[in-house]
């Protein structure tokens, strides 16, 4: 009997959807790339984040809010199934502002975004100046102006999330193939066949969750391959005792004690390397935030490539020319994991992706005819 689904890509997007489909009783094969494939899932900082997401698309803000609310149950369920603690904390978070101008611009943006739709009025946030942040961010430096606090934000260990998804998928019978890079996908009357140097795999339907691989794999199936790499660099320090400081996009302390420092957007093509210049800049900013980190030793640094659509919002689409083929691209795979594993998997399974989430199709990138 053919499999119900082929999923191309075993990152956090592909595995969350694989988990969601397998939980609904579908038979799923996942074809994953090599360890040295481009893997945003293994390079990100692990924020489960709501504030500021979807500035260009309120529906994306709604999804982020929705997913963050589903996260506690999602994390608990995965831990129950696998015994893996995701180090998830629904603790709230602060996005820092370094001067008055940035603080003003941030508040203007948020006021507009969180009034854009009725459900977004439920988003709670407030601007706190440096003094008011003392409690959430003890030791905050003098050169930080303040930041926006939102109780919806949180953090997890993204590597443990991925590991738990693998483990849960295996217990649910998902057929996972590592080091099986797909070179092309063919549509036939009975479904789809994916080709790789390790052989060919067939299923009735196919889901691309291939990150930047969508650029070549998606267009032949009538799907949008419009994603491009945006590099981030991350530094990690030696371990320190738990500080109780809330996470920020600029830096956060992990459950094991090290500080993750990041939040840069770079156009570097497919180069996943790090640069001294950026390491220096990130270090300076970390010291600006917590001056005591001037004494911290760096343990490691790495670069990773975000999977970015033209407008930065997720891309969920069903092919019109090849029914049964879907494409999922987003750079928010951690925050949206709870949504991907539940509602998105259901929408694909029931073939209502275009109906429910039509706003997120690649059609929005096409030039609209006028007149």
């Amino acid at each position: 009997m053919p499999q119900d689904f082929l999923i191309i890509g075993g990152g956090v997007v592909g595995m969350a959807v694989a988990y969601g489909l397998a939980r609904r009783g579908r038979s799923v094969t996942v074809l994953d790339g090599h360890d040295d494939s481009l893997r945003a899932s293994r390079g990100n900082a692990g924020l489960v984040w709501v504030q500021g997401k979807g500035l260009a698309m309120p529906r994306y803000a709604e999804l982020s809010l929705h997913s963050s609310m589903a996260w506690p149950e999602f994390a608990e369920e995965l831990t129950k199934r696998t015994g893996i603690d995701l180090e998830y904390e629904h603790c709230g978070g602060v996005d820092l502002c370094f001067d008055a101008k940035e603080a003003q611009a941030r508040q203007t943006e948020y006021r507009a975004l969180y009034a854009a739709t009725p459900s977004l009025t439920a988003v709670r946030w407030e601007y706190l100046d440096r003094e008011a942040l003392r409690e959430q961010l003890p030791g905050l430096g003098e050169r930080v102006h303040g930041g926006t606090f939102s109780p919806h934000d949180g953090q997890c260990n993204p590597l443990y999330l991925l590991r738990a998804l693998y483990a849960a998928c295996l217990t649910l019978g998902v057929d996972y193939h590592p080091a099986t890079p797909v070179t092309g996908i063919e549509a036939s009357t009975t479904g789809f066949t994916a080709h790789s140097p390790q052989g060919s795999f067939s299923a009735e339907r196919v889901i691309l969750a291939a990150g930047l691989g969508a650029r070549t794999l998606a267009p032949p199936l009538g799907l949008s391959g419009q994603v491009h790499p945006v590099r981030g660099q991350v530094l990690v320090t030696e371990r320190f005792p738990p500080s109780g400081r809330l996470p920020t996009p600029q830096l956060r302390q992990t459950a094991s004690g090290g500080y993750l420092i990041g939040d840069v957007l770079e156009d570097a093509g497919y180069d996943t390397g790090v640069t001294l210049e950026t390491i220096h800049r990130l270090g300076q900013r970390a010291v600006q935030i917590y001056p005591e980190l001037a004494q911290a030793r760096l343990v490691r640094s790495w670069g990773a490539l975000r999977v970015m659509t033209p407008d930065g919002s997720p891309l969920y689409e069903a092919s019109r020319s090849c029914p049964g083929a879907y494409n999922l691209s987003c750079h928010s795979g951690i925050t949206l994991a709870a949504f991907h594993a539940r509602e998105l998997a259901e929408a694909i399974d029931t073939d209502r992706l275009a109906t429910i989430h039509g706003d997120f199709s690649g059609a929005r990138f096409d030039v609209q005819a006028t007149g």
Partner: protein
Amino acid sequence: MFKRLDNAAPAAMVTIWLEGQPHSVPATLSAAAAVLWLVGATGYRDHAAGGHRAPLCMMGVCHDCLITIDGQPNRQGCLVPVAEGMRLERQRRPA
């Protein structure tokens, strides 16, 4: 235990201080190698999670050689050459 190879090239000696005691060690050693050579792996470091640790890779990867050098904690001992007057403290939980 740990000893110099019989055919090791001769090296100048420097004085380092391990937990306040002076020792003469070959100048070609790293701080981690010097500690192993002087007192062995036992008691090298206690991990925050409760276990015992000692240098493993000796090439900057495993981070098990962390040691306090000249007052700075968590240095990678395998990457730091010994120097005259260097002060080393192993990172151990108080008994």
